[in-house]
């Protein structure tokens, strides 16, 4: 009986070791390629919100880590500093916590004076067919942020049209665009109010 049990236990252990060895081997083989791929992907996403002719190969290295949950919806949040023409531009992650169904995670390029260069939606759980028009592949709405500047926290133009602002809402979905507009506005205001970001030391902890 004991012999039978220990034989099975041994076999089970052997199978586990074999499986782990296979996975470890494949992981060793693919790890460098995977990390290169995800770096390239990250850079590609960041470049999407920046002007098309913008070149900055060290963009990912100039990463700032901030603790400002009231402005970016998450803490800590990351932003990447770069230079477009004469002025500093920050590519920042920001989260709209007040979407129709949960968080909407966004990426925005904002100039130091509070002008938005571009916004993209990274992830969301909004209703398919209604709220998902914030995705660039479904609707060009998100492009309407480009070139808009935020003046102050009571800037009337930074709202959906239903609330008297400049941004379109979607038929059947007002909460989603309202949340996105609010999140971009908060991020832009923060960047405008904190010129010291330009001199802040770079460095982000690994995720």
């Amino acid at each position, binding site marked *: 009986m004991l012999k039978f049990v220990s034989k099975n236990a041994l076999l089970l252990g052997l199978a*586990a070791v074999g499986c782990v060895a296979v996975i470890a081997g494949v992981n060793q083989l693919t790890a460098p390629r995977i990390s290169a791929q995800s770096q390239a992907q990250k850079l590609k996403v960041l470049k999407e919100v920046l002007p098309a002719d913008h070149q900055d190969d060290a963009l990912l290295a100039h990463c700032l880590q901030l603790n400002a949950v009231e402005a970016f919806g998450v803490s800590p949040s990351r932003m990447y500093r770069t230079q477009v023409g004469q002025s500093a531009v920050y590519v920042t992650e920001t989260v709209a916590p007040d979407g129709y169904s949960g968080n909407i995670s966004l990426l925005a390029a904002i100039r130091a004076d509070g002008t938005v260069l571009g916004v993209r939606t990274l992830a969301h759980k909004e209703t*398919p067919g209604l709220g998902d028009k914030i995705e660039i592949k479904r609707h060009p709405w998100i492009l309407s942020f480009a070139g808009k500047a935020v003046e102050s926290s009571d800037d009337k133009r930074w709202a959906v049209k239903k609330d008297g602002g400049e941004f379109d809402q979607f038929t059947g979905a007002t909460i989603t665009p309202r949340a996105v507009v609010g999140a971009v506005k908060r991020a832009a205001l923060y960047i405008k109010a904190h010129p010291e970001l330009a001199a802040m030391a770079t460095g982000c902890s690994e995720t």
Partner: protein
Amino acid sequence: MQQYQEIIRNGLWQNNPGLVQLLGLCPLLATSSSLTNALGLGFATMLVLAATNGVISLFRQHIPNEIRIPVFVMIIASVVTAIELLMHAYTFALYQSLGIFIPLIVTNCIVIGRAEAFASKNAVLPSIFDGLMMGTGFCAVLATLGAIREILGQGTLFDGADLLLGPWATVLKIELYQADSHFLLAILPPGAFLVLGCLIAAKNAIEARRKARQQQNTSIQRARVTQVSSS
């Protein structure tokens, strides 16, 4: 040869994992909101099924009966993880659109179901073939479901195919009709259940009709009964 014919018939129709065994409903319903997603998960499942069936059949004589289930689970999890890592490294675009679905395959009962019911009792080649055919059957149901839901809910076919197949595939996208508001229910989770229910009903109806016709051919009396009842 007859064994292979039997495997084809079982996988594609008689014992179809999506319509008859109803195994793996979780990924089936979660990923069938568009044809592209459905095909992606269908192919990935087919690959995993063939690979795990092959491996398990290879070791079937060395795995004692008492511990076979934990060993199967380990083998399946390892194969899926290895495939996920390889896809992440070498087919990054595909991984991006399917990445979240790949781990779902581990939860697909059809994989362990075939390991237990077929691969642990049969030789390597028929096992791999069974995995392929079961996978094809699953993929076909998934694709049909995805196509119906996408047509009803979005009015398109092959939306986002470029994420799966590369940039050239944007030409595949077909805009069937434009409507102000689509039939949203079809894309939402309840739509998956409704459409799958209709598909199963359709299969059963075809089966019943076929059976009735067979009986009609074998016994004349039966034929008269059905004629009377149908008139």
